[in-house]
């Protein structure tokens, strides 16, 4: 994996009171090309530790003169989004990972239904560029509050016309959206977990095959019970508090674990477990692997026992 990319913040636009859009330009080398649905992980030097958050690239994939990301300020911020909003100014440098993608459009679909909730609109902004270029049939259902991400809706209205359906402050009727769709239709959901659950439930009710339903949750790891990770090789104990992921806690101790998505899907950070029981929160391992409690995805998963001994 090629290393981190240093970029310069060339513009910061206010989309709404809680969402800012950052334009990132290359410093020393051209930015890699990317596919629609890709994200980058931004590393931020916080006061007492580094924050690393994944943000979808929302610009046109054909244009790699700059990257664009949008950051929603989270009320219960773990630090990253607050840092982006308060501490980053035009002209600053940031370190980002190369793009990776775990939320691809299905190029063989005949019709694409996009369902976005709030800041979940971001990967779809890149999708739309590709769909428009390729003449792919698509429609967008966008649920938002004006004071949060409504700022994108004006631009979307101009681009999409009648294939844009806005739901301001209201929840769409997912059953109606999914009813009577031809088999080549795929649905993509990006938004809060509640919305993902509601759409996947509606799809199941209507006998949609799982392979036609795609979603990406916000990547931030959820909080949990504190525990201690003991590193078998060195005997070092790493305390993982309720708001920090195991991966972040390890990194804070200088223990680098290979990783890509920081959201439990890519499998790169899989780490062997010698003792303890794992609270699996990833989407990578299968049921058999989970039952063995002999490995963990430290980016999202936690411990069921007070101590977890890692083969590190």
């Amino acid at each position, binding site marked *: 994996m090629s290393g981190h990319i240093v970029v310069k913040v060339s513009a910061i636009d206010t989309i709404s009171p809680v969402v800012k859009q950052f334009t990132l330009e290359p410093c020393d080398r051209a930015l890699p090309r990317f596919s629609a649905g890709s994200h980058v992980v931004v590393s931020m030097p916080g006061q007492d530790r580094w924050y690393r958050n994944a943000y979808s690239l929302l610009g046109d994939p054909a244009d790699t003169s700059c990257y664009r990301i949008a950051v929603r300020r989270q009320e219960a911020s773990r630090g990253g989004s607050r840092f982006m909003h308060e501490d980053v100014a035009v002209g600053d440098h940031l370190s980002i990972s190369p793009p990776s993608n775990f939320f*691809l459009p299905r190029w063989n679909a005949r019709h694409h239904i996009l369902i976005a909730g709030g800041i979940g609109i971001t990967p779809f902004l890149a999708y739309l560029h590709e769909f428009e270029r*390729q003449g792919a049939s698509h429609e967008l259902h966008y649920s938002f509050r004006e004071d949060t991400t409504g700022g994108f809706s004006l631009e979307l209205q101009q681009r999409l016309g009648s294939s844009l359906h806005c739901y301001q402050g209201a929840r769409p009727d997912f059953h109606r959206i999914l009813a009577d769709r031809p088999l080549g239709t795929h649905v993509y959901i990006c938004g809060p977990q509640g919305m993902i659950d509601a759409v996947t439930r509606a799809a199941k009710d209507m006998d949609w095959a799982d392979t036609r339903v795609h979603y990406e949750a916000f990547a931030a790891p959820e909080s949990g019970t504190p525990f201690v990770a003991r590193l078998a090789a060195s005997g070092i104990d790493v305390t993982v508090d309720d708001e920090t992921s195991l991966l972040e806690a390890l990194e804070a101790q200088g223990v680098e674990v290979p990783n890509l998505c920081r959201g439990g899907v890519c499998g790169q950070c899989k780490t062997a477990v010698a003792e303890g029981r794992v609270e699996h929160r990833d989407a990578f391992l299968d049921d058999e692997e989970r039952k063995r409690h002999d490995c963990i995805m430290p980016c999202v998963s936690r411990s069921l026992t007070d101590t977890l001994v890692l083969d590190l």
Partner: protein
Amino acid sequence: MRLYPRDTQAFRGHFTYQNSSEAIRRFPFPFPEDDYIYSVNIEPHVLPGPEGSVYEHMLDIDEHYLSETAERDMVLREDPDRCLAMPHMRQACWDLLEFVMTHYARDYPQHFSFERQGDDCVWVNHPLNIRQSFRMGEEGTLPTSPLELIGRQVQGDIALLDQRDGDLFMDAGVITSPADWSLAFDAGMSFKQWHGPVPLAHEMGIFDRALKYLCAIQVGGPVRRLNWTMTIHPRMDSSPETFAHWGKDRTTITPDNVGQDVYLRVELQTLVRMPRSHALFFGIRTYLISLEDLVTHRAWARRLHRVLKGLPEELADYKGLSRYRETVVDWLAHYDRQPEPQY
């Protein structure tokens, strides 16, 4: 590096294929141990690799470039189905074209150039005497499809794998030198479906692990592996479609001709994430070496003897070696008689 001669008899007819001493020196010998066992033998394709080795550049070309592209042309004329792309692979085909042109021009500037102003491009391939202006992404500006255009100029076979639902699908490619498989047959198949005929490895969970690994490959993180089999004569096109031409060759091996007629066939497989489509490029660069040339390297001769001798029956059958394995093993035994060096 020289890319000639261009010889249309190299891989058929009179089989004029020959390796220079340089080609023998850089041959990617695939056996790290005396026993051949299956493993997920995939490693990062870290670039640049050792100078002069087959790993130096993203895409390796060598002295057989002109002969192989001529062979590719003949196969495609005889059987246009060796090049195919499903409609949803359109973006992936453009990705491939840009990927090959960029890397060839960067790594072999004496032979290729690729100039680009926005979407206006000019590609020059000196060895094949091609100069092509076109607009990136606009099919109408090329004389053939982007896949066929670049596929004809690549040394080695290419497949483009679409990734969806945690699986890979063989949905496009230009395959003219397959080791007993067929793109037309495998097209549209999933990773485990096209590996269906491989014995033993399914039970070992090899394909489960490999698939997860391959699906996680990202832009900027190419990987590679070596695969091997054996071929009678330096025949590149050993496809099921042409089995009638080459199948019977397996019965012709004798102690007298084994050194000249039996070839070790090694594939340098590279897997690279295409940036715009997220398709996986699967490149298969094939290297052939006659046993006569191979045994000039004593360590290789000794090791190949031990590998072939111990190869499980199922694997020998799958690789099509059963009919002549014993003859090869007996012939190689001569090079494995010296005692092991003592340290």
